[in-house]
């Protein structure tokens, strides 16, 4: 580059003036980098500086902070270059300079926009700087001060240098076109900034550009500055040996404050005088924690009768303790047992454990589980009383009075009537209760004195006696005996002489009234001789074997039963006084087992295998048909009141029928183990009994109430044993004493027993 003097003279002059001691520029320009050379040209104001420049060319450190000024001067320099170029084109080209120029131009072309923005930013920055910056910067050549440079707009110079000489503005004749061209051609255009103070353009060095870029990015200007260097904690947790400040403590810090004392005394006085009331401690009326279900069973819930309060958690006990008493700790066996048991069966849901301190206690592993269960308990369980009826099985058993309260009834065996040699099929007691008649398979009828068990009389009848029946009329003393196919009327000649004679007269008296119309199925005949002496007065010959005889309560009628499947001739009713017999039934309704007369009314009970039919004898029709619910009826007995019937059956059952209630049994008693052979009612006491093949007689209490709404009270009271089972037969017949609560039973062991 050639510092030509051919330009404007003032400039050359000023140059010369500025760098008076410089060697002629044209001669040998120092081989320096262009910026540096430019700087040297800029700083050549004093020799010292140039010398210094010469001394340390590469050292540009000291000029860093004044980079803007440098760039300003640089741009000024450039402008001058352009001026020179434009002024005279032919110039010698230094290789280095050319290179530099080319570089500049390229960059300038590239970044001319950048440069513009940069310059604007510089200007603003400059403005900012000047606002608060002092003017004590070293490199300030312009001494004009901090004034707006516009004031020098109309002057050729711009301020003054240190020597008081005018600093002339560079000759500025660049127009827009130049600017454009410069922009296009000058590679350093983008880094060229205009220095307002000097009015020159300054080309920024790489460092400066870098600095600018860093600042623009908001980074520190100094590359080496570590903005993240570790902080030195001033107030740290470490106890320092020395105080932060070595200042001694203030006196006021240890002397009571007089002002405060005064304030306090004022307050105290005010409180004493009552001017200030001490703040009332708020009563803890509102409990912070409350039991949600504490008042559950109060009046609100009272209307929900079926509500159940929430189950409360059990309070922890000693076994929950972390240090329980040793008896709560499990032994090995208990532990083993606990582990074996199902979780539902365990007494405790955990094993009590001992810890030396509370800190050692681990988290409870089942905590969540238990809370969950608790929640289930609270929310999912239907909290309502179930309408399940909790019935004690014992309550279902009807409240029966104790047998003790139902006395008298026979309890112990008192007398045994021995004498028969065959099984005793039937017994009957005289209406007075003094005599007992029994019929046995040994072909005899025996009469016994009840109170002494003395056999008073033996009548041989020549055949197995199936049934005996004492005439219930107390004015007569007669016994009906069923032997094979005959019914014998016996006069036992026991008891009152008058009665005996009247009954004998009855038997003897009505013989002329024997109607002989056609062949009768039943033949009446009188006995004579030996039989008459024995007491047998009449024989009623039946077509078939007679199994049962029974008297009507008045004692005039007598019914006999001949069980037969095929015939309708199964039941005969005989009238003793007129010696007449009739068969009341025309049809065969089944195998007749047993018949009975109603004690009061004209009814007749006929028991077939399964049914008990009740016939009205006056109207001659069937009144009722009772279903025994058993397979084979063995015997029936009619209550002395006439409204109840008991019915024993071979399938071990005893059925009680209430005739006013139903045709089904009111009660079925299954106390016997074997077939029930005989049943009987007591005439006076509320007793009935059943005899069975298992050798027992069961006595039951059976109160019948007059009130139709009240059911009969049936209580089994006593099992009487005594008969020996022979040939699988136990007790065959049972009958009550007419006045005493005594019972006679006859058995297959050829004995009759009296239980009292």
């Amino acid at each position, binding site marked *: 580059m050639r510092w030509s003097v051919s330009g404007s003279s003032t400039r050359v002059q000023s140059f010369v003036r500025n760098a008076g001691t410089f060697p002629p520029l044209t001669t040998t320009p120092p081989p320096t980098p262009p910026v540096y050379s430019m700087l040297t040209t800029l700083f050549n104001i004093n020799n010292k500086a140039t010398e210094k420049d010469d001394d340390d060319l590469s050292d540009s450190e000291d000029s860093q902070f004044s980079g803007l000024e440098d760039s300003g001067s640089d741009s000024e320099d450039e402008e001058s270059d352009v001026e020179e170029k434009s002024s005279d084109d032919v110039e010698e080209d230094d290789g280095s300079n050319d290179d530099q120029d080319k570089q500049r131009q390229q960059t300038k072309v590239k970044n001319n926009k950048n440069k513009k923005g940069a310059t604007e930013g510089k200007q603003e920055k400059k403005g900012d700087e000047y606002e608060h910056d002092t003017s004590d910067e070293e490199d300030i050549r312009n001494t004009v001060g901090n004034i707006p440079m516009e004031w020098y707009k109309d002057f050729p110079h711009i301020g003054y240098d240190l020597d008081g000489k005018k600093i002339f503005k560079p000759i500025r004749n660049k127009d827009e076109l130049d600017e454009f061209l410069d922009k296009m051609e000058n590679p350093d255009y983008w880094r060229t900034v205009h220095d307002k103070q000097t009015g020159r353009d300054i080309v920024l060095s790489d460092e400066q550009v870098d600095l600018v870029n860093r600042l623009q990015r908001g980074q520190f200007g100094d590359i080496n500055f570590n903005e993240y260097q570790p902080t030195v904690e001033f107030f740290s947790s470490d106890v320092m040996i020395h105080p932060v400040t070595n200042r001694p403590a203030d006196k006021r810090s240890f002397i009571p404050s007089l002002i405060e004392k005064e304030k306090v005394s004022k307050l105290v006085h005010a409180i004493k005088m009552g001017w200030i009331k001490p703040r009332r401690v708020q009563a803890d009326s509102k409990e912070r924690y409350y039991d949600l279900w504490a008042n559950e069973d109060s009046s609100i819930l009272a209307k929900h009768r079926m509500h159940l309060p929430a189950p409360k958690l059990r309070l922890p006990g000693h076994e929950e303790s972390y240090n329980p008493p040793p008896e709560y700790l499990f032994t090995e066996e208990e532990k083993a047992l606990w582990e074996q048991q199902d979780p539902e069966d365990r007494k405790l849901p955990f094993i009590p454990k001992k810890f030396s301190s509370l800190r050692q206690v681990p988290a409870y592993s089942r905590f969540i589980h238990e809370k969950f269960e608790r929640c289930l308990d609270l929310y999912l369980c239907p909290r309502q009383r179930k309408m399940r009826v909790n019935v004690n099985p014992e309550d279902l058993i009807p409240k029966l009075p104790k047998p003790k309260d139902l*006395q*008298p009834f026979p309890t*112990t065996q*008192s*007398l045994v009537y021995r004498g028969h040699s065959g099984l005793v099929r039937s017994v009957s007691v005289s209406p*007075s209760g*003094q005599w007992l008649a029994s019929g046995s398979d040994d072909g005899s009828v025996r009469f016994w004195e009840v*109170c*002494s*068990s*003395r056999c*008073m009389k033996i009548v041989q009848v020549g055949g197995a006696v199936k049934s005996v029946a004492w005439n219930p009329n107390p004015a007569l003393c007669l016994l009906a005996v069923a032997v094979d196919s005959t019914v014998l009327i016996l006069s036992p000649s026991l*008891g*009152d*002489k*008058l009665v005996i*004679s009247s009954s004998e007269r009855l038997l003897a008296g009505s013989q002329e009234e024997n109607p002989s119309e056609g062949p009768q199925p039943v033949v009446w005949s009188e006995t004579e001789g030996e039989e008459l002496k024995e007491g047998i007065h009449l024989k009623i010959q039946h077509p078939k074997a007679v199994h049962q005889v029974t008297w009507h309560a008045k004692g005039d009628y007598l019914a006999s039963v001949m069980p037969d499947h095929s015939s309708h001739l199964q039941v005969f009713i005989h009238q003793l006084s007129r010696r007449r017999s009739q068969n009341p039934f025309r049809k065969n309704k089944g195998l007749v087992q047993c018949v009975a007369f109603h004690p009061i009314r004209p009814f007749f009970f006929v028991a077939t295998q399964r049914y008990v039919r009740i016939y009205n004898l006056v109207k001659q029709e069937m009144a009722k048909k009772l279903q025994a619910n058993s397979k084979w009826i063995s015997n029936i007995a009619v209550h002395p009141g006439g409204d109840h019937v008991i019915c024993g059956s071979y399938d071990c059952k005893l059925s009680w029928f209430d005739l006013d209630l139903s045709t089904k049994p009111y009660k079925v008693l299954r106390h016997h183990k074997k077939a029930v052979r005989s049943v009987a009612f007591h005439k006076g006491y509320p007793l009935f009994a059943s005899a069975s093949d298992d050798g027992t007689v069961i006595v039951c209490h059976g109160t019948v109430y007059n009130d139709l709404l009240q059911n009969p009270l049936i209580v089994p009271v006593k099992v009487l044993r005594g008969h020996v089972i022979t040939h699988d037969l136990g007790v065959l017949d049972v009958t009550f004493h007419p*006045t*005493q609560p005594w019972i006679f039973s006859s058995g297959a062991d050829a004995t009759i027993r009296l239980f*009292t």
Partner: protein
Amino acid sequence: MKLDYLHSSHFLITTKFESSLTASHSKVEFDFLVRGQFLRMPLSAHMDTEAISTEDVVEIEYVEKITAPEPEECMMHDDWIKKSKPDQILTGSYDKTARIWSVDGKAVMTVAGHLDVVKDATWVKRDGLTSLLLTASLDQTVLLWEWNSERNKVKARHCCRGHTGSVDTVSTDPTGSKFCSGSWDKMLKIWSAVPTDEADEVEEAADRPRKKQKTQQLSLTRTPLMTLSGHNEAVSSVLWSDAEEVCSASWDHTIRVWDVEAGAMKTTLTGSKVFNCISYSPLCRRLASGSTDRHIRLWDPRTKDGALVLLSLTSHTGWVTAVKWAPTHEHQLVSGSLDNLVKLWDTRSCKAPLYDLAAHEDKVFCVDWTESGLMLSGGADNKLYSYKYSPCRTDAGA
């Protein structure tokens, strides 16, 4: 010989007794009564059961031990013996006869005349050689017999008719001028026991059977002086408890006391079971009853309410058919039962009898005492046993 000691020194008592025993009597056994109860078990147990405090003063009596009765005679009857009456023993039997026995067991006389079982027999009066006796029978009559012991002849003096059932019991009044009979027909009848030669006028029914006429001819018919009706069931036992007082036991569970003079019932004692027999002791004025529930009960007939059982003696296992107070001892009675046993009781030891007399092989129907101190019992084994019974020499040590 009452001895009052502090009970705590009872050991002393016994030693004292022993010394006295050895001193005075060589071979006498004693029974001790503590507060009127026989000592039958260890003293401490007895005190427990009787609730005697050890701090109390108790009165201890001792009596000579009653020796065991020994069976002396066994009299064979032809049939079951139903009733026996003492001293010149009179028995009625099921063979329709009554018999007179001497005390040493010889049959002296057979009294036959009844048509049916003799249910009861009793002496009415014995003066000199002739004696009056009564037999009651199932044939509804009571016969009054006169027995001449010298000639050994018996003659039916009167036939007492009126009952319509078997006459089960007769009893003469203390003077022997009247007797009372109880029957199955629920009636009590009072008759005169004085034999006369005139028959009472009996309204005979025209159609009386011939058989009856025959028995009538045997003796003079007598009709009852009085009929006492009130029982609902058969009368099982009657007795005269006083000159004009009759007690009757019945199957209707009552014992009734009748005023014979007024012919009215005075008291009713109600039990719960059939009464078979009663006995009255003038010594202790108690009634003893035997009933079908195996108990012997003691009653005071003079109590008005009549439901008070003073004591019940329970040991029999069958009906008690006979009971009799001892004629000379106020505490002792004998009972017979259907369990074949005769028991001798002392009322001071009500838990257990003094002795069980197991001689009979069948039911015992009657028991009695003779005045000479024999106990008699008859039963269904056709035997009449007599037991020698020695009353205490120092009778009732107290």
